[in-house]
């Protein structure tokens, strides 16, 4: 049974092969499996075009040839034609079975990741993707090697999202309460868009990031340099990245606007009036303490809701944040 289908597929392939590999209506083929998906798409396309043109030509011919002349004339009483009806049921059935088989075979390659794939963890959340690499580095852009298959182990913290990379023809839902997997074997180095494909609210269309496919060997060098990005990056820049990564922007604004926590604009070095009436100068120690034990000193007029970041940020991270605050004078 399997052999027969593959035979039909090869025959169809010869018919389809001469169309340009790169078509205007498909995104670039940047993964090994993209070529097969496009080929199947073109196969179904040509089958559909053939039947559609057949129907339209017949319809137009009948309309022109059999226009009404005498309003009383009635067409011949042809009730049915069993052989004709059997053929136009059997042929679509056969074609449809072939398409199902090819679709299913192609899907099994897409669905089952190879054992030795390089694993990256993904957290989808309301309107941001976070990629955690094996060395613990977290980034909002997906970096992948081009010589090895990559598997993304994904989960969501709030609603359903969907990881969709058109260039790899890959898409899988990212659901809260479940780990879903998506895998691809990137071949063409370059940057390709990465979309969220399951509606997730206001920022659904802003939940876009990039897949950066590194050339052979470049991925390792990037990994080492990225691991200690706090050291390599300019302190203010690293501070800003931490500010958004750790979610400080949820409560602390940098523009002076009021929030759940005090604003960082003009904070560093200023006099801070505490809830218990004492005043402290907001220097490095105060900032460090309010990050690691936020409940110790509460600024007047704010509630003690800040979580501790003990164990979630290292000294170099705190230094970067302080540098960023200084840049906000």
């Amino acid at each position, binding site marked *: 049974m399997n052999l027969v289908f593959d035979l039909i597929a090869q025959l169809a392939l010869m018919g389809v092969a001469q169309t340009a590999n790169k078509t205007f209506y498909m995104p670039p083929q940047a993964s090994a499996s993209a070529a097969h998906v496009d080929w199947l798409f073109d196969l179904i396309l040509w089958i559909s075009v053939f039947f559609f043109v057949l129907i339209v030509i017949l319809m137009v011919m009948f309309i022109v040839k059999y226009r009404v002349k005498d309003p009383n004339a009635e067409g011949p009483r042809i009730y049915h034609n069993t052989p004709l009806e059997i053929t136009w049921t059997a042929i679509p059935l056969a074609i449809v079975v072939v398409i199902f088989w090819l679709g299913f075979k192609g899907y099994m390659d897409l669905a089952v990741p190879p054992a030795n794939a390089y694993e990256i963890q993904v957290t989808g959340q309301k309107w941001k993707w976070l990629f955690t690499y094996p060395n613990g580095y977290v980034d909002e852009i997906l970096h992948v090697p081009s010589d090895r298959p990559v598997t993304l182990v994904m989960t969501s913290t709030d609603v359903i999202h969907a990881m969709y990379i058109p*260039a790899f023809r890959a898409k899988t839902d990212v659901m809260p309460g479940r780990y879903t997997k998506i895998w691809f074997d990137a071949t063409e180095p370059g940057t390709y868009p990465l979309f969220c494909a399951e509606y997730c609210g206001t920022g659904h269309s802003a939940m876009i990031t990039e897949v950066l496919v590194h050339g052979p060997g470049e991925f390792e060098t990037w990994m080492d340099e990225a691991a200690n990005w706090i050291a390599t990056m300019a302190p203010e820049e690293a501070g800003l990245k931490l500010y958004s990564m750790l979610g400080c922007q949820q409560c602390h604004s940098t523009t002076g606007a009021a929030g759940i926590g005090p604003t960082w604009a003009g904070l560093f070095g200023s006099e801070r009036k505490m809830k218990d009436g004492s005043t402290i100068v907001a220097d490095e120690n105060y900032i460090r303490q309010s990050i690691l034990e936020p409940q110790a000193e509460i600024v007047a007029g704010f509630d003690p809701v800040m979580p501790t970041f003990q164990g979630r940020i290292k000294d170099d991270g705190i230094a970067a944040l302080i540098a960023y605050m200084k840049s906000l004078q």
Partner: protein
Amino acid sequence: MTTTTYDGHAEEKNYLNAKPGIWSWLTTLDHKRIGVMYLISILFAFFLGGMLALLVRTELLTPGKTIVDADTYNQLFTLHGAIMIFLFIIPGIPAAIGNFVLPLMLGAKDVAFPRLNLLSWYLWITGAVFAIVSMVVGAVDTGWTFYTPYSTQTSTQVINMTMGVFILGFSSIFTGLNFVVTIHKLRPAGMTWWRMPLMLWGLYATAIIQVLATPVLGITLLLLVAERALGVGIFDPSLGGDPLLYQHFFWFYSHPAVYIMILPAMGVISELISVHSRKTIFGYHAIALSSVAIAAFSFIVWGHHMFTAMSPMGNMIFSALTFSVSIPSAVKTFNWLATLYRGHIRLNAPMLYALAFIFLFGIGGLTGLFLGALATDIHLHDTYFIVAHFHYVMFGGTVIAFLGGIHHWWPKMFGRMYNENLARIACLLIFLGFNFTFFTQFILGTMGMPRRYYDYIDTFATLHQFSTMGSYIMAVGFFLTAGYLIHSLVAGERAVENPWGAATLEWRTASPPIEHNFHETPDANYPYDYSVNRYNPETGNYDYIGPSRVDDHGHAVGFHGAESTT
């Protein structure tokens, strides 16, 4: 009783002016009046849905903000979807045209349960009020599918809208229930199941789905409301629920629902193609059985909406079953084509819509092949390819057939003829505008443009502008249609009893019909035996001259092989 005189004015009262006053309309049990009331209310919903569609397309004219911000855009496309589906296209052909035509085609005085029929309309109105109120108070922004956990966590009026849809579900169940019982129990003498018009087969198959699928939507929305209001934790993962379970529940109803939309349209097209090419339908048995086969298969394919979230085993099963549904639709299309062969085709408005249906439904059906095959669906799922596919099937299929049906039965419903030339122009405008709008979206979809995107990357900009321009052309076509149809009500030329020469029973009573339909219950003849009427050049009417060949019981024969009658 004087019968209708042909010099244009009828001494006898018809169902429209039989009883004066609004109260007689609001408490009517007459299926024709309920059909007209449904027609007016769903056209209002269609107008509302259409305006929302224009706003959505205008917003997508340019990347980023064009006229509204993200939240409003999300509300716009959600309401466009919800109103068009629950308020217009599901009740659409069955309630508006079906209510009017079904009893007439059976030669009956009314549907089986007239009071239930009126209750169905009032439930539609109640459901519509809930939906419109939720629109004003804090419009829903979850998409018409209300997927959890977003719909259980958003702060918009989900409970109001879901309650509205819950009530609309009952309206749909009661219409379906009424039609099943009427077709089973109120058929006239001589009209066996195989001598019933194919419009009734379409409505029968639709009614089966309406009765058997809609309750599952009811329980799904009830559980959603219980989850939001009482925090029960069935679908919301933060309460231990399973969001994929919601998708199984929702699509178990919603896929049969798309066949609730297309099957009556197919029924209308079978009538239009046969009448306006004045040739007996080809493959009556095949078309009738295909309708019921589609109704049966529609219940086993819902998984193809969730190929990116289900297990490979589930995907395999549903992908294989999905292809089973495409066969009956293909068979029907070929049968309609064969009916055109050696017919006497008149290119008036209903026929133009029927031919447009074959063209557009052909594209819609064939693009379904890409979505049934797993490998291509993974790439195309939740992109604009899907938006284009279902608009080709729902708009290109059901709405075009609805317009064809409206023009075909307009003389019978209101006793007036519409302006033929304007109708042809409007049909062309709608056809062109539709193709410009949605064929471009196929390409947007294959290029990877996801659905429900308020903002998009620049590579998609030109195609969106082209698509929006197409939607404006379509809007012009609709306003033109509305214009000449309303004008025909007031100043249209009086319609004769049977302007098209159709052989089904509704054309053997006055236009518009008297209140209890027929003076005496007509004897059923084979619905596509056009030898039963002759064209009368003076009045332009096809006068009924009785069946050409009669069997010993006096029943019309006209259908070879069916000599024995029950």
